[in-house]
């Protein structure tokens, strides 16, 4: 099946039996409306954001003891066997779409964003995107333009930072009442 008529289509990627349509963020809503109304993808299953900061920077593994080599206290710091393909921007947002029909089909729509760059909200296309986008904002810090209620969902309203970002340290969050207050 070809998706050439999807508005704003940048690239079609086939991998692991899954189709990914990389779309220009500016035309995301147009593309999603087209996929829903023309291609029949009436069901939005998931919105998943990912942060690629530091992607592929651990270096390629050599024999133990090479430069930038191995820290014995941290297993699995030996580096990659092959460097992963570079990504166009820091963040990706992936929308998993389904057609609930006799012939089930699935497709992933993906947009790439820089830090602070907003994706247009698709709540108007699929109401279920409401909480998914709030989660992506809360945990990954991706703003969504035109979302009717974009506020934190899983963390409290005064939380600082977005914990699923790669530069947010694990165990580094402030713990209340633990200091000498």
């Amino acid at each position: 099946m070809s998706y050439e008529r999807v508005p704003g289509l940048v690239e079609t990627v086939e991998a692991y039996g899954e189709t990914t349509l990389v779309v220009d963020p500016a035309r995301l809503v147009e593309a999603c409306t087209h996929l829903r109304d023309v291609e029949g993808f009436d069901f939005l299953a998931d919105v998943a954001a990912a942060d690629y900061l530091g992607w592929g920077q651990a270096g390629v593994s050599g024999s133990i003891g090479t430069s930038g080599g191995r820290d014995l206290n941290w297993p699995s710091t030996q580096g990659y066997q092959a460097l992963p393909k570079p990504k166009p921007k820091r963040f990706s947002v992936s929308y998993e779409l389904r057609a609930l029909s006799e012939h089930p089909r699935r497709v992933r729509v993906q947009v790439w964003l820089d830090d602070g760059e907003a994706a247009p909200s698709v709540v108007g296309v699929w109401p279920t995107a409401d909480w998914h986008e709030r989660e992506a904002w809360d945990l990954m810090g991706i703003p969504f333009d035109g979302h009717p209620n974009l506020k934190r969902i899983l963390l409290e309203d005064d939380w600082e930072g977005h914990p699923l970002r790669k530069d947010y340290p694990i165990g580094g969050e402030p713990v209340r009442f633990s200091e000498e207050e």
Partner: protein
Amino acid sequence: MAVAPVRGRAEIYEGTRIPHPIPTVLRVPEELRATGDVMTVNFGPNHPSTHGVLRLVVDLLGEDVVGVEAVIGYLHTGFEKNMEQKTWWKAITYPERIDYLSYQHNELVFVLAIEKLLGLEIPPKATWMRTCLCELNRIHSHLVWLGTSALELGAISMFWYCFREREQILDLFELVTGQRMHTRYFQAGGLAEDIPRGFFAEARRFVDWMPRAIDDYEAMLSRNKIWLERTRGIGLLSARDAIALGQSGPVLRASGVDWDLRRAEPYLAYPECDFRVPVYGEGDVYARYRVHMEEMRESTRIVAQCLDRLERMEGEPWIADDRKVVLPPREELHTSMESLIHHFKIVTEGYRVPEGEVYVAVESPRGELGCYVVSDGGPRPWRVKFRAPSFVALEATATCLRDALIADMIAIVGSLDTVMGEVDR
């Protein structure tokens, strides 16, 4: 173009009932608020009938719900962040804890994602045993749902009956895996251990007993006047609204949409199993109850079919023979240097999973449980994201609670079958 196959009564109400502009928040109209008669009540987060820590901010006009907003996040534990720090092998322990009622499904979806990236072949015995345990787990999850939901509407005895059968399932899990909950029995490549002796006899006894137990439940509830009055015609959700709100599982099927991932996107041994997908068109709490009951019957049938197949697989391998990913057999560690090295490498450094991103979905007891995984080719997942069906189900609260009475709110929220651990992750 493609229209969802809808059976039963497709349109239970005109148009849409999804609130606008925020689909998940039912706002009180300004003129009603101005009368001063609307009272805002905070319900939860610590309330025994919210199945965990769900908070609902409800606006009441007398006994009528005129506004509602669900507030979640009280159980957020950062599973996804933690999994990025662990090797693939160690991360399998985490998903089970996300939805603590359907742990096998959560474990399965992550293991399937790893296997998809690795391109591992799974021995048939492991596939059938996974199917068997997943269906037992579905019955277990539905039993807890039925017991607690009925309890909230005053049917206390249901709770004891349901937990009696639940106990039998947990005993089976303990027999196979050594754990009653959070079994961690599925490994990338197959199962952690062979099926123990005595499992088939015990499982057969359960399969023979379960239909009679479901008869008991239905005798107690299906024609029970109070139960009917409390569940019929409330919490309405039409097929169109259910799809727009991304609902899945029993909620979607109770709204008349004939959709089940076990059939639509076959995985495990489901293509070879004979089972029916129950669909009801009323879109109310009673329809959701009917779907749950019939699914338990169908799951029992699937378990029986799995047992038939598994009994003939005595002596077959239960895990793939790929020493780069699968732990070597325990006894080899004493005699084989290579096995010891492989064991050490897998446990300390972990195995490497090829670069790529996949989205794998299974039909959990609550609906589409998805797992989006990104690998950078290293020994740890780069990103793991779960599509939690409970999270999405709670998005429908505002729509379902439109025009509801406060007393029905418990029944309606309960019928969405949410597990807060999975909602908040």
